């Protein structure tokens, strides 16, 4: 027995839900399903704080937004994609307003916008500092009104079914019962989010394990630009909880141990009392995180139980502004750090935040595998290039979620029913899960230990600064971990809500993704955006104005190829901030 | 048929408010201070004169009936929740509101019959 749908969406975050609605609106007769390993409103989109960018104010222009995005991405963005993105962004944001998202407002009732890092103008829409939360809940609650959208909550996808060169569905575990089930579809959209958990310190939730990236990679679709990992300059040291960029756009300062606004030493402009666009604390995330490392090398950071940190100071903004515009920041600091940012400085350090890379797709979200689409953080279209600007990602979920939804629905309308021959593959998968994990005998490796080793390897090799020798060593270590993974053994053999089984599958995804990151980083012998090689400190446009594509090789390790960047109107130039 | 719940809830609310505002002083005076002689009780004639006044009659009617309905409503739910008698909800409802109705009828009759 198999479940069959027209369009199947994997992931109930912002991208997945937007895609589902787009498909449902395109053709009400389509049978749409959303599979998600957690209830949709638990998806990590919920934790985005700062806002979503789209041009709306007079004086702003689509070109300005495009330029900020492209220069912020160090010219690795595909400019046709960026142009589509900035063009469709305003309507998408308005659409969300019409669906009930409680955007913060001006006194006259219009939507309010705030400045954000790397942006030349105020164009970031926000819902206090819980933008992602409000967007996700508005989207989720809106999907409830479409009867053609069926949900499979807490179903975990383990494999993409491919037959006759076309994606025909997935195999998933119903977590509550352990039932392994084929879900067939004419088109599948992966919206499974990022993979911050391959690193130890991250703002990402425990569910961000690169599942979709690994699923596509195993099914033969290449991963693009995986070496570009964004560190957010202001995470809380122990938990990695994010202190939003909005703290800085409202006027917060980064101070080293001497109380000095150190960013002025790193070509990011002069310290002014009020925030200045594209300058100092409003510089791009890659540059701010790099400045932290330099500061640490000079011995000017503070040291605590969880390593080095600096101070984020928002005391001068005053309680009133903090409570009005940054209430969640205050709540987080009080609850998780036991400090009150109205009176005290917040300890922060760079933490892994976002993956610029992902499954290679075209401008409609189509991957190189027919019938398989991708959108959201899992995908790389690419608009983010070598460094994403804050508040572009939430908008990307909407624009490219909608595009992928529409494209997949159109694709599905022209397909025959999935062929039942893939069901044999589903049975193989059920057998594999049983033999490798649930009924396995022997095996000595523990999930938690392997995961910790992988995370440590990644932090040491693929962090803010990288170099060939360390990356090579890391590639070897990851291979070794892949081998040890075969020896993994579970303590939990139950079919009912077996979270250890889920954890082991997530670990296997992360290992694949980690390898792709390390190999891509090793091959890119230049420094660009968030990818900084100490052995190749310069940007090299002659060789590397190109996307890396990682394909799974015969022995399981990735093979790296390159694809040229689409340049339309903005020829590569130097990135300038603070001047 | 329109469910009557909102109406009963209104009686409950009104009765609760009246009880909250006025019962403490009545209970202190008529239930404790006067009988115990802590305060000198007004004479029979004074009181009798008072209750004959139309405003007082109306006042008494309201102050007795609405709190009875307050009781009926709240007590009914207390029986459901605390004693877990939800399965008897019809019977309990009939008993509670009938009792309140009876008390109100007696009050109305009494007020009506004041010479």
């Amino acid at each position, binding site marked *: 027995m198999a479940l069959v749908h027209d369009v199947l969406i994997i992931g109930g975050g912002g991208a997945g839900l937007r895609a589902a609605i787009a498909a449902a609106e395109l053709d009400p007769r389509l049978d749409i399903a959303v599979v998600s390993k957690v209830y949709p409103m638990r998806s990590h989109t919920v934790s985005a704080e700062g806002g979503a960018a789209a041009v709306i104010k007079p004086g702003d222009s689509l070109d300005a937004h495009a330029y900020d995005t492209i220069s912020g991405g160090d010219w690795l963005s595909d400019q046709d994609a960026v142009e589509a993105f900035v063009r469709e962004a305003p309507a998408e944001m308005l659409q969300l307003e019409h669906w009930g998202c409680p955007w913060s407002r001006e006194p006259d009732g219009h939507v309010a916008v705030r400045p954000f890092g790397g942006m030349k103008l105020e164009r970031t829409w926000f819902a206090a500092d819980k933008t992602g*939360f409000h967007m996700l809940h508005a989207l989720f609650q809106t999907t409830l*009104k479409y009867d053609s959208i069926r949900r499979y909550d807490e179903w975990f996808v383990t494999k993409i079914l491919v037959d006759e060169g076309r994606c025909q569905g997935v195999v998933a575990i119903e977590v509550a019962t352990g039932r392994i089930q084929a879900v067939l579809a004419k088109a599948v959209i992966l919206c499974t989010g990022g993979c911050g958990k391959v690193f130890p310190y991250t703002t990402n939730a425990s569910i961000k394990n690169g599942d979709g990236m690994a699923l596509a990679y195993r099914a033969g679709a290449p991963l693009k630009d995986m070496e570009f990992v964004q560190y957010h300059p202001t995470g809380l040291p122990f938990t990695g909880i994010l202190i939003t960029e909005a703290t800085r756009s409202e006027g917060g300062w980064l101070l080293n141990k001497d109380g000095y606004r150190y960013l002025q030493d790193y070509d990011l402009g002069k310290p002014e009392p009020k925030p200045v666009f594209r300058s100092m604390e409003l510089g791009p995330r890659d540059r701010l995180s790099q400045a932290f490392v330099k500061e640490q090398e000079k011995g000017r950071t503070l040291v605590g139980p969880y390593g080095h940190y600096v101070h984020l100071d928002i005391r001068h903004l005053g309680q009133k502004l903090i409570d009005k515009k940054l209430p969640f920041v205050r709540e*987080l600091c009080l609850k*998780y750090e036991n400090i009150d940012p109205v009176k005290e400085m917040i300890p922060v350090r760079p933490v892994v935040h976002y993956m610029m890379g992902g499954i290679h797709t075209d401008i409609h979200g189509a991957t190189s595998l027919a019938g398989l689409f991708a959108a959201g953080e899992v995908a790389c279209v690419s608009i983010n290039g070598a460094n994403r600007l804050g508040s572009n990602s939430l908008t990307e979920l909407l624009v490219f979620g909608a595009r992928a939804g529409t494209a997949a629905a159109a694709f599905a309308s022209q397909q025959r029913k999935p062929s039942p021959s893939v069901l044999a593959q589903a049975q193989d998968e059920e057998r594999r899960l049983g033999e490798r994990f649930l009924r396995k005998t022997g095996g000595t490796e523990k999930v938690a230990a392997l995961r910790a080793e992988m995370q440590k390897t990644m932090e040491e090799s693929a962090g803010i600064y990288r170099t060939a020798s360390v990356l090579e060593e890391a590639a070897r270590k990851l291979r070794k971990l892949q081998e040890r993974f075969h020896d993994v053994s579970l303590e939990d053999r139950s079919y*009912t809500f077996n979270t250890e089984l889920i954890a082991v599958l997530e670990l296997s995804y992360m290992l694949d993704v980690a390898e792709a990151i390390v190999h891509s980083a090793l091959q890119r012998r230049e420094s660009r955006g968030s990818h900084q090689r100490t052995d190749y400190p310069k940007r090299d446009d002659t060789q590397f104005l190109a996307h890396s594509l990682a394909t799974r090789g015969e022995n399981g390790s990735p093979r790296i190829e390159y694809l040229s960047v689409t340049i339309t109107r903005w020829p590569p130039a130097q990135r300038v901030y603070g001047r | 048929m329109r*469910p009557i719940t*909102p109406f009963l809830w209104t009686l409950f*609310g009104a009765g609760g408010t009246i009880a909250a505002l006025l019962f403490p002083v009545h209970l202190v005076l008529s239930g404790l201070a006067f009988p115990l002689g802590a305060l000198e009780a007004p004479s029979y004639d004074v009181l009798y004169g008072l209750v004959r006044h139309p405003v007082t009659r109306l006042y008494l009617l309201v102050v007795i009936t609405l709190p009875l309905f307050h009781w009926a409503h709240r007590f009914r739910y207390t029986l459901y929740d605390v004693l877990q008698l939800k399965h008897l909800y019809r019977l309990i409802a009939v008993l509670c509101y009938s009792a309140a109705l009876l008390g109100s009828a007696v009050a109305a009759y009494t007020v009506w019959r004041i010479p």
Partner: protein
Amino acid sequence: MPPSVTLAVTRYRPEQESEPTLQTYEVPFRKDWVVLDALNYIKDNLDGSLSFRWSCRMGVCGSCGMMVNGSPKLTCAAFLSDYLPGPIRVEPLNYFPIIRDLVVDMTDFMHKLKKVKPWIIRAQEKPLADGEYLQTPDQLEMYKQFSMCINCMLCYSACPVYGLEQSFIGPAAIALAQRYNLDSRDEAARERLEILSEHDGMWQCTFVGECSKVCPKNVDPAGAIQQLKLVGAVDWFRFLLPWGTR
């Protein structure tokens, strides 16, 4: 500061056991650890078979609700240090069926949520080209509080009325209905009032008020419900008005 603390955790493996039991674990005590960190310590180091849900570890995804020493809490926001010297009792949320260990079944809520139509309903949609619906900060303020619900279910597991009668639509669903009723962009307050006035709706609530007390996001569902009752009561008397509709 003690070197370690004891957790008494509910275990229930439906394939082997017929009812839940408590199992104790000794975990290291750290000043900045929350109960969820301790559970993860157990899962990673002591017993890989312990099952529980979590995700964001920052109090916003709503998945880690459990009973801690008998009160519903987000375990990612409950510091071990507030429960010293222990032992700390960690149990699945009250009043929900237990699937396994600390995991409860909340499909029931998902049905209820859909029932109250938590989306904007209008007679006439404004075209996107005409821009946003204007909404002043004061109008936003009207419903803002009720829009903060993270669906964590703590309120349900604090509400004895829900415990006694699972058909009760419950605090969070009603608060979300009220969130849309109060939104100046929405026009379906009547429709939702009718849904909420059904037998299992808001009139079941006896204003225990615990829902609001345990809510980690200060949503105040108890307030939402009483406000709706007031609206419902006033609505009932409309027939007395000459222009009343019924």
